[in-house]
């Protein structure tokens, strides 16, 4: 089957509005504003089966339909461009190369949810990307696609870029909102869900950049077209971010359900230096590892759960046989310890202890009891925290022990790695 990427389309200069227009840009928007009611747009998205691309995979159209019909408060849209899940780097490419796709999607989404004010919350480090979006919004405003009375329809939308400050937790939707409200990005308890009471206590929809970029295509080509790609429950395409020990790391947009083997060996050029594959983390550092024998798994929401992991953000991190699993778990645990916001003690203390224990094992000072202690800490964190960051710190540690306990034991006994990571920085 030949598949042509439509999100990461190879059209050169697609960031310029004239080029975008020449290739059918903003036709979905003008069609929607002329011919469809907001309810019809939402229904089309529900029919398409589109699920959120930010990590949780919640059905997008259904989320939109949770906005209370009788609200007298303003409705907000927040586009989540925080992109901080280790292993994930797709939204950056979308924003740099296809900013108008995101803007067109955001305007259609806002129309569907009856919102006149949208924010794009972008991680603070993405300065170039933020400027690119600002430039593109100015272009789109000048042409009447954003702003007051869009294309004469009477619909208004103002889009504001909001730059974060380098905190991973602000990608979590409730933390994103508290950050946008000013001050520290602390997650809040759910319910209430954002669709009912979100930003400034108003109904709010939060969607990932890639999710929003799908919207113009669904409006142009229809739900049936979208459903013709992927699997029954994971429809459409997905951008897989492949990093680590492959010959051609990068973003690959492919139909959902493609096999991991095809992704790695046909698209990403196979394992570097002809080494053997050891481990893949298929969905960013927050999901369990897969061992090499799972390489035929299909890359979609359901199949990855069946295989013992998750699609998450589709950050596919590839480790070859030279990778020490203890070292990898140590590096990942350092991240969660650094990013815990500190509100709940199981997460604050748990991530710190996991990091300290992995640090001592990694540096030859571990004890045999440490392995079970790590598992204990995992159990104490899981399910006991306000937001999912606590839970997200667990899978790498727990799954690495599950599959490679012998490597941990070797490490503790011999005070060194069983295999030494080949640091090929030259």
């Amino acid at each position: 089957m030949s598949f042509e990427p439509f999100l990461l389309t190879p059209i050169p200069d697609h960031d310029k509005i004239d080029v975008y227009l020449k290739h059918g840009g903003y036709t979905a928007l003008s069609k929607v504003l002329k011919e469809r009611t907001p309810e019809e747009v939402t229904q089309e998205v529900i029919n398409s089966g589109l699920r959120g691309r930010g990590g949780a995979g919640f059905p997008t159209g259904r989320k939109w339909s949770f906005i209370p019909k009788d609200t007298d408060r303003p409705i907000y849209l927040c586009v989540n461009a925080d992109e901080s899940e280790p292993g994930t780097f797709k939204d950056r490419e979308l924003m740099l190369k296809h900013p108008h796709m995101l803007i067109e999607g955001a305007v259609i989404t806002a129309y569907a949810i009856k919102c006149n004010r949208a924010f794009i919350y972008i991680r603070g480090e993405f300065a170039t990307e933020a400027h690119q979006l600002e430039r593109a919004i100015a272009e789109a405003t000048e042409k009447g696609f954003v702003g007051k009375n869009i294309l004469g329809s009477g619909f208004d939308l103002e889009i504001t870029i909001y730059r974060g400050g380098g905190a991973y937790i602000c990608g979590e939707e409730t933390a994103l909102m508290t950050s946008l409200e000013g001050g520290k990005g602390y997650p809040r308890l759910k319910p209430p869900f954002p669709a009912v009471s979100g930003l400034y206590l108003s109904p709010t929809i939060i969607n990932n950049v890639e999710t929003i970029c799908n919207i113009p295509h669904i409006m142009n080509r229809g739900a049936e077209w979208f459903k013709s790609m992927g699997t029954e429950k994971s429809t459409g395409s997905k951008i897989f971010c492949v990093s680590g020990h492959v010959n051609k790391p990068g973003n690959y947009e492919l139909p959902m359900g493609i096999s991991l083997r095809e992704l790695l060996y046909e698209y990403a050029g196979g394992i570097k230096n002809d080494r053997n594959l050891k481990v893949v983390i298929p969905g960013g550092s927050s999901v369990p590892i897969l061992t090499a024998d799972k390489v035929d798994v299909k890359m979609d929401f359901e199949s990855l759960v069946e295989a013992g992991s998750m699609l998450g953000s589709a950050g596919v991190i590839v480790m070859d046989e030279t990778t020490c699993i203890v070292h990898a778990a140590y590096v990942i645990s350092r991240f969660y310890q650094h990013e815990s916001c500190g509100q709940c003690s199981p997460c604050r203390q748990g991530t710190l202890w996991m990091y300290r224990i992995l640090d001592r094992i990694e540096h030859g000072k571990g004890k045999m009891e440490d392995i079970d202690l790590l598992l204990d800490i995992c159990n104490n964190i899981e399910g006991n925290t306000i937001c999912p960051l606590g839970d997200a710190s667990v899978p790498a540690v727990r799954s690495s022990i599950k599959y490679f306990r012998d490597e941990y034991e070797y490490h503790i006994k011999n005070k060194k790695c069983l295999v030494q990571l080949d640091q090929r920085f030259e």
Partner: protein
Amino acid sequence: MIDKSSKGLLSESSKEKIEGLICIFPDKQSIILPVLHVIYDQLGYLDSKAIKEAASITEIPDVYFEEAASFYTMFPLEPVGKYLIQVCHNISCTLMGAESLIDYIKEKLGIKPGGTTADGLFTLVTVECLGSCGTAPVMRINDTYYENLTKAKVDKILETLRNQA
């Protein structure tokens, strides 16, 4: 009100930017993070005196800014070198040699992470994932990303910056 007699740290252009931000959000408090960006863009770090000046322009208590400043790790709270080198040491970059990259820069500049060279040009820090894992190893110097790094590339980047300074 700002005390006009003692010279403040914020430039006229930064003050204008801050004033321009005041009315754009549904709730005024939302400008805290954008204001921190303005201060950081001008000074390269969040100076507490500058924060006080900004707070008085916005008429929001400075403790709110201070709290946010301590939460968002992207902004240094003390002066740093002219070039802030942020090397990613998260998983994908580590797999591609980030630890050796950090060692290499440490040796080359004679500083440890957290340190600044004697000439005040370079500060080295390690950071978590920069969202550029497909082009690892990666570093960010001030606002610019440098990707697919090799020793030769690092040499050239640092030399170019030194010559520009």
